[in-house]
């Protein structure tokens, strides 16, 4: 017999195939009624062993491979890798190449944040917003395709530079696309901060204080939504970010709504940055010569991916293949926060809390 005070506890397994997530991850939530009392996560379903494969391939082949760590932020991975290898070789890519890298980084951030907006709106049960934001996202996909020739893995980087150039025609198309997106983003900003049913799902849910954020070491927009001013683009400018500094967007509230607002405001900031880069694009060469063998040594390369800090470690022994390449991606830093924040919330809020950190399992597992 059960009395009210000794209610049974259930464990609910979710995943790895799960309707709400497009990627494999396995979660176990113990619940008391509707309230989550404990959570564990098991990652690694998408582990392919990329880092090991990288040791068999030469430096150039690895660009192709590291673009495929993650299809959403592929350019960021390739940029981190190329910047690292260039540093090892003691080569600096020409200014125009750096600016184009930065340009594509920002375009990719736009596509990634719009994608995230749709997916998390879907988690919140707001499919209309999902469809609208993905419709608008096609605008930036078109721009990326016009610029680089591919919708997803752009292959912009080569060692020592880039292989695409921005023509006047493409620049005009980008200006036009951004005008449209800017208008839409203002609209979305209004939606996420005023729509009543949306606010019920997001306001005051999954609050992470600034102190918690610092202790758990979360990165990227998730940290910035809790008031942590941390952005590699400013702290350690790479590519052309020293010439085109972005503004850090922070929000003190730390709840889900804040994460929406921060990412949407970052979109606006990215639009500004892209326009500025296009207006002041340096002239000159696109590539410099790279040696085939890279001097022995080791280095670290950090870039700000759409989801937070991305960290590459590279080690060379003077041959044409790396000895070790290691990538640490933002999702692993942010994942602890999900397990913590889920406790005490209703089970129905958990998918949105998870989506709030913008998880990317394939980056994470590699």
């Amino acid at each position: 017999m059960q009395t009210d005070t000794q209610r049974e506890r259930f464990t609910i397994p979710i995943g790895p195939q799960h309707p709400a997530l497009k990627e494999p991850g396995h979660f176990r939530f113990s619940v008391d009624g509707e309230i989550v009392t404990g959570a564990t996560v098991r990652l690694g379903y998408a582990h392919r062993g990329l880092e090991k494969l990288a040791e068999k391939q030469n430096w150039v082949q690895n660009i192709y491979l590291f673009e495929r760590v993650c299809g959403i932020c592929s350019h960021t991975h390739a940029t981190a890798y190329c910047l690292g290898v260039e540093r090892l070789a003691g080569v600096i890519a020409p200014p125009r190449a750096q600016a184009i890298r930065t340009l594509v980084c920002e375009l990719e951030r736009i596509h990634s944040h719009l994608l995230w907006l749709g997916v998390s709106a879907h988690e919140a049960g707001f499919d209309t917003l999902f469809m609208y934001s993905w419709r608008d996202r096609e605008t930036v996909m078109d721009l990326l395709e016009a610029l680089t020739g591919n919708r997803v893995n752009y292959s912009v980087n080569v060692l020592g530079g880039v292989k695409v150039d921005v023509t006047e025609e493409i620049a005009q198309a980008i200006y036009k696309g951004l005008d449209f997106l800017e208008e839409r983003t203002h609209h979305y900003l209004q939606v996420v901060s005023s729509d009543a049913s949306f606010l019920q799902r997001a306001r005051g849910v999954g609050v992470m204080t600034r102190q918690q954020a610092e202790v758990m070491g979360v990165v990227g927009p998730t940290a910035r939504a809790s008031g942590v001013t941390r952005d590699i683009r400013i702290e350690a400018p790479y590519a052309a970010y020293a010439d085109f500094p972005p503004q850090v967007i922070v929000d003190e509230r730390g709840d889900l709504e804040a994460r929406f607002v921060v990412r949407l405001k970052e979109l606006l900031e990215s639009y500004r940055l892209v326009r500025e880069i296009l207006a002041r694009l340096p002239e000159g060469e696109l590539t410099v010569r790279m040696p085939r063998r890279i001097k022995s040594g080791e280095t670290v390369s950090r870039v700000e991916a759409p989801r937070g800090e991305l960290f590459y470690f590279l080690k060379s022994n003077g041959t044409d293949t790396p000895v070790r390449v290691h990538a640490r991606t933002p999702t692993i830093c942010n994942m602890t926060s999900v397990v913590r924040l889920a406790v005490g919330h209703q089970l129905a809020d958990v998918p949105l809390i998870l989506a709030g950190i913008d998880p990317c399992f394939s980056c994470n597992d590699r």
Partner: protein
Amino acid sequence: MILSEKGWQTVFDRIKTWARVNSPWVIHFNSGSCNGCDIEILATITPRYDLERFGVKLQGSPRHADILLCTGPVTRQARERLLRVYEQMPEPKFVVAIGSCALSGGAFHDCYNTMGGVDQVIPVDAYIPGCPPRPEAIIDGVVKLLQKLQQGEKAEVGDQKPGELS
């Protein structure tokens, strides 16, 4: 007119094929892909490409689905899960492998932890190459599978190789 038992069977079969072709429900399983293909699948069901106009609905549970859209080179951890998802789907079921890595392992062919393609694990009915395939290509692949169903010939299991569908 009173139909014989066989006659009724034919009528039922026709109705079933008609229903299946006009509203195939699909499920999406990521077996360790890089996400590139998955976001293109999602892009396919959103307004610009709108796969739903063919009656295709993305479904969360394998028990409700007719078509399994599978991406990724099938990692060793995901293999069990893929098999389980496949087994849970009701007959008849069809599998579409999306992306170079689902076809052959693609960029991850030499990785120690991958099986090297979906057809190493479960039978595949249609292959859509590309890294990632464009949404148009995904639509094309699904529509070709539907045409096949309409003609009533269930694809011979694991019989087709990339490119043979066209």
